[in-house]
């Protein structure tokens, strides 16, 4: 005869017995409720926690008689279950609602089974069918959960090799930027600026802006440059115009100064902030 005990046994080595222990008090399994003895509800809580719910408790009641679920004597199981629940109630132990719902379901099955079945209704459901289906369903998962727990797993059974790696400070790759991202960003900022009414921003052709930067850069390194030296003949007429516009724009933005020592003397160009920068 085999008895399936509820899984998390507080003490696997404890002697087995046929009767459902009501409680474990100081290591002793109490199988009969002593009439004159007060059992603290805490102890019963231990019992209740042994079960994962009413289905688990029912399975226990069935399995300890080594009965097949399909052959359950519902009347008997119901009696035991209700006794159990009643005991809990008598001890004013607060049961989870699920246990009471199950008690009601069992009582209903029991009463339906007492009714004579009408022969003409062939397909009438066995009143036990739903309960047995649920019990079986729960039991499969209860068993497979145990099997899952038995699988080798990390932390308990398996330890991944984890060796120190050679010193490798990988250079962090620089973020990539696509030109289109840049353009989208600019479009967004321009739109924001446009919405702020008072901002009117002029945008000269890019060739002019670029040339402005080049001229400034040259003044930064050379300080004082003859006006004519800023023009490159080989750039042709268009290049000359761009440079001229750039210089005019720089003057307008007060970034450079055009100086002439005396009339007809050579014209020079210098950065306005050049002094500040140089010392």
């Amino acid at each position: 005869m085999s008895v399936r005990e509820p899984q998390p046994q507080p003490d696997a080595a404890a002697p087995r017995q046929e009767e459902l222990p009501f409680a474990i008090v100081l290591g002793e399994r109490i199988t009969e409720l002593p009439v004159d003895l007060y059992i603290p509800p805490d102890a019963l809580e231990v019992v209740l926690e042994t079960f994962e719910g009413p289905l688990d408790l029912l399975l226990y009641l069935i399995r300890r008689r080594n009965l097949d679920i399909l052959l359950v004597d519902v009347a008997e199981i119901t009696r035991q279950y209700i006794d159990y629940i009643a005991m809990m109630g008598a001890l004013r132990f607060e049961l989870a609602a699920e246990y009471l719902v199950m008690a009601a379901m069992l009582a209903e099955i029991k009463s339906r089974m007492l009714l004579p079945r009408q022969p003409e209704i062939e397909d009438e459901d066995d009143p036990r069918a739903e309960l047995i289906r649920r019990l079986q369903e729960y039991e499969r998962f209860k068993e497979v959960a145990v099997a899952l727990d038995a699988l080798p797993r990390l932390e308990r059974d398996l330890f991944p090799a984890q060796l120190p790696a050679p010193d490798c400070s990988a250079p962090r790759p620089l973020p990539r930027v696509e030109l289109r991202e840049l353009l989208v960003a600019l479009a967004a900022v321009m739109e924001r600026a446009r919405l702020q009414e008072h901002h009117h921003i002029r945008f000269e052709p890019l060739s002019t802006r670029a040339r402005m930067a080049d001229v400034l850069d040259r003044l930064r390194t050379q300080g004082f440059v003859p006006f004519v030296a800023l023009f490159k003949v080989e750039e042709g007429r268009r290049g000359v115009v761009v440079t001229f516009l750039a210089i005019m724009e720089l003057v307008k933005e007060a970034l450079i100064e055009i100086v002439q020592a005396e009339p007809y003397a050579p014209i020079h160009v210098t950065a306005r902030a050049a002094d500040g920068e140089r010392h």
Partner: protein
Amino acid sequence: MASDTEPLRRIVEGALLAAGRPLDIAQLQGLFDPLEQPDAVQLRAALDAIAADCAGRAWELRQTASGYRLQVRAELAPWISRLWEEKPRRYGRSLLETLALIAYRQPVTRGDIESVRGVAVSSDTIKLLLEREWVRVVGHRDVPGKPALYATTRQFLDYFNLESLDQLPPLGELRDLEFSEGLELAPTEKPTLATAAGPELELTAATDLPEERAEP
């Protein structure tokens, strides 16, 4: 030939040892310069060589859901686990049953789990499963309250040393209540269950777990 694959094999071995987590073929390819990347066939050959070499050693090469992992064999756990003072965490039945329901029935809602288990699933249980990244929310069922649908993750499979859900232990079969006509009969007069032999026996063998003890 052997000298050809040897450098590749060493690199793969070194990476698996250093990673401490599963690496898949693409990640192994990523160890190389784009122009020197071995193809999947070459990498599998290197992995085969590594696996063959593990025979009888303290470690093994295991393929889990996220890739290949070098790990110390489970049979050495009694010694190896002493390296860490903390005992590995034990998981209670409620968590394991919930996890099993999610694994076998995914995607499921908390309500689905509760209806099988017959009890409420605590929020802590779900939280722990989510925190361990064993399960994740894959959607919401289109019913009032829009309950979350849970499914297991690759990390779950990795943790339990599995490559795919197929490798989970088999779930027992449901039997029909067909012979209910014999309702009135005493259980002793029933045909023995041995008639239902084949699958039933197999099932028993598969679920014959260490925790279950038969009474003499």
